[in-house]
């Protein structure tokens, strides 16, 4: 454990100005538009945004797991010093599993219905670690035990239909963890599950991450989920990072109105009964014909003329270089420095 801090510091993933553009019949669709992020070993990054904000595409772009047709990927994804954008299919395949793995959103559809779950785990092991069938099967049962599946020998022989959603997601996690990845991409891993099961799956992921010193990118639309389980949060809107900060800092000092709106649209236990939940008005912008200026301006209650004309750059909070946001009139910054901030709505 003595050299642990040194390991913690190792930069694992560096994404610079990543752009994912789909060509559609209507024109280019900018699903991910200039996203930069970095991740150390053992760190957890939360990526938050509503549907269509590009968070799922971001996680798949980082992995390189996008359909080749009609998709252009630009920018740089450096994983442990190796460039992944433009890397050959074979290179990526050799990394998928042993180095980078993904847990998918819907456990009901992400397991192959025709194979027994034990076999699905064992296949990955045999493919990458070249284990014999016997050893792989044994390891699969060990993995099932690790992810908290009772009577794993029996479950290994079950087909996915025979397992509940929570169990399937555990199997999915076992498959993802099978080859000991250094980076786990969890794409809304609890969205399809009951709330009680959600907590269990989240605890399991955290436990596995801690034990394996794995870095994790946690994609979700639920700020409540990432609040206690991430080191850093990225808030995405219309394919762009609109705010990023260490988790505590972000919740303490929300700057970007979109983050604020997301926070207010989450129900809280502490609220008095019958508190009206504040939904965000309007809909996310069309990613083919994007609005001029700040992409959130059409829905932003504080939007001024400048917001509709100029796109705000991602800048650091004064005195807090770790906290970046893209907003002309950030929340909570004193009126003296930014006189024209006051909103028109009460």
């Amino acid at each position, binding site marked *: 454990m003595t050299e642990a801090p040194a390991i913690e510091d190792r930069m694992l993933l560096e994404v610079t100005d990543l752009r994912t553009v789909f060509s559609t019949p209507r024109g280019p669709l900018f699903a991910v538009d200039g996203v930069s992020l970095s991740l150390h070993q053992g760190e957890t990054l939360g990526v938050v945004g509503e549907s269509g904000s590009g968070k799922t595409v971001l996680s798949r772009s980082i992995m390189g797991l996008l359909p080749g047709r009609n998709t252009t990927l630009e920018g740089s994804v450096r994983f442990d010093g190796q460039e992944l954008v433009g890397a050959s299919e074979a290179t990526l395949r050799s990394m*998928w599993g042993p*180095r980078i793995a*993904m847990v998918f959103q819907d456990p009901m559809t992400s*397991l192959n219905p*025709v*194979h027994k779950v034990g076999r699905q785990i064992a*296949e990955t092991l045999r493919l990458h670690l070249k284990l014999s069938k016997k050893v792989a099967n044994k390891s699969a049962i060990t993995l099932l035990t690790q992810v*908290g599946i009772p009577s794993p020998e029996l479950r290994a022989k079950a087909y996915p*239909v025979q397992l509940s959603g929570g169990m399937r997601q555990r199997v999915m996690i076992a498959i993802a963890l099978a080859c000991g*990845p250094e980076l786990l991409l969890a794409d809304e891993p609890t969205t399809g599950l009951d709330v009680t099961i959600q907590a269990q799956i989240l605890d399991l992921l955290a436990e596995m991450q801690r034990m394996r010193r794995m870095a994790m990118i946690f994609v979700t639309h639920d700020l409540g989920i990432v609040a206690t389980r991430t080191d850093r949060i990225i808030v995405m809107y219309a394919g762009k990072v609109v705010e990023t900060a260490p988790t505590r800092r972000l919740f303490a000092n929300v700057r970007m109105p979109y983050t604020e709106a997301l926070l207010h649209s989450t129900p809280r236990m502490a609220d008095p009964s019958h508190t009206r939940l504040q939904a965000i008005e309007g809909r996310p912008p069309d990613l083919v014909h994007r609005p001029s200026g700040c992409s959130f301006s059409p829905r932003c209650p504080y939007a001024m003329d400048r917001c509709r004309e100029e796109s705000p750059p991602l800048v650091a909070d004064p005195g807090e270089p770790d906290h970046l946001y893209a907003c002309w009139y950030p929340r909570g910054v004193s009126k003296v420095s930014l006189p024209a901030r006051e909103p028109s709505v009460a």
Partner: protein
Amino acid sequence: MRDELAAAYGGRSSVDVALPTNGVGEPDLLSDLAPAPEELAPRRAKFGVFFWICIGWLGILAFFAIFANLLPFQDPNNFDFTIGRDASISWHHLLGTDQDGRDVLSRLVYGARTSLIIGIFGTAIAMGVGGTLGMLSAYVRGRFDGALSFFMYCGLAFPGIIAVIAILDFWGRTEWHIILVLGLASVPLIFRLVRAATLATATKEYITAAKSQGATSFRVLFHDVFPNVAPALLAYTIFTLGGIIAVEGAIAFLGLSVTGPSWGNMISDAGGDVSVRMAFILAPAIALFLTLISLNYVGERIRVRYDPGEVKL
């Protein structure tokens, strides 16, 4: 203890080692227990009695077709001088003799052999060519898919039976030519079917998941896509078998099939004189009818039972 474990398993070697600190012991992890597997076995449509009757008929047919020359049947091509032509049912000729004095039962059995050989090998060609191309086409997509699909749609638009007649007339009517021509004529239909099934499967999340685990395209195609397409394919294999046997009967009736005994030939031979030779028109016709209805019914039951569209996944 935990931290040491973390250090020990933190790297990439965490596979073949059990982690005693985690998992089964923790009660909060157990509350999403599903019922035991056997309780949740997927409910499937039953096959029913008629299905097994059909299977029985097909089994009898296959048995006689396979062992025809080992069983005490008469030579299907020999004139029986002791009885003569157009004989009615007797102990020696259970179904009588036809206009050339040949034993009808024996011809029926050897005709079954012809039908099954042409049907099975023709179906194998249709499935092999159409199935492989259909899966590849749907999986590769792009221009390859476009070109191949266009070609296949042209094939579908072509009046099949006329093409078959023309080709067989030109090529000569050996058994293998008939198999090849009937098999290839069925390719576009199978292609279209398999392509559609593959398209539906290839966009499923578990295919993406398989890719994300580092599987090659070849592996994804045959290990993950194919088993999901296969059940639908099985049913259509049986339909195709029935279809090819029916078409063989039709072209035989037109005098374009093999020269040996064949159900179509028998009906054709009996020809215009229905009133006299009712028995040996009826015999092959009933055999053909029973075989086709059995194949179609069996295929349909299998489709209902195994088609993923009708099974709750």
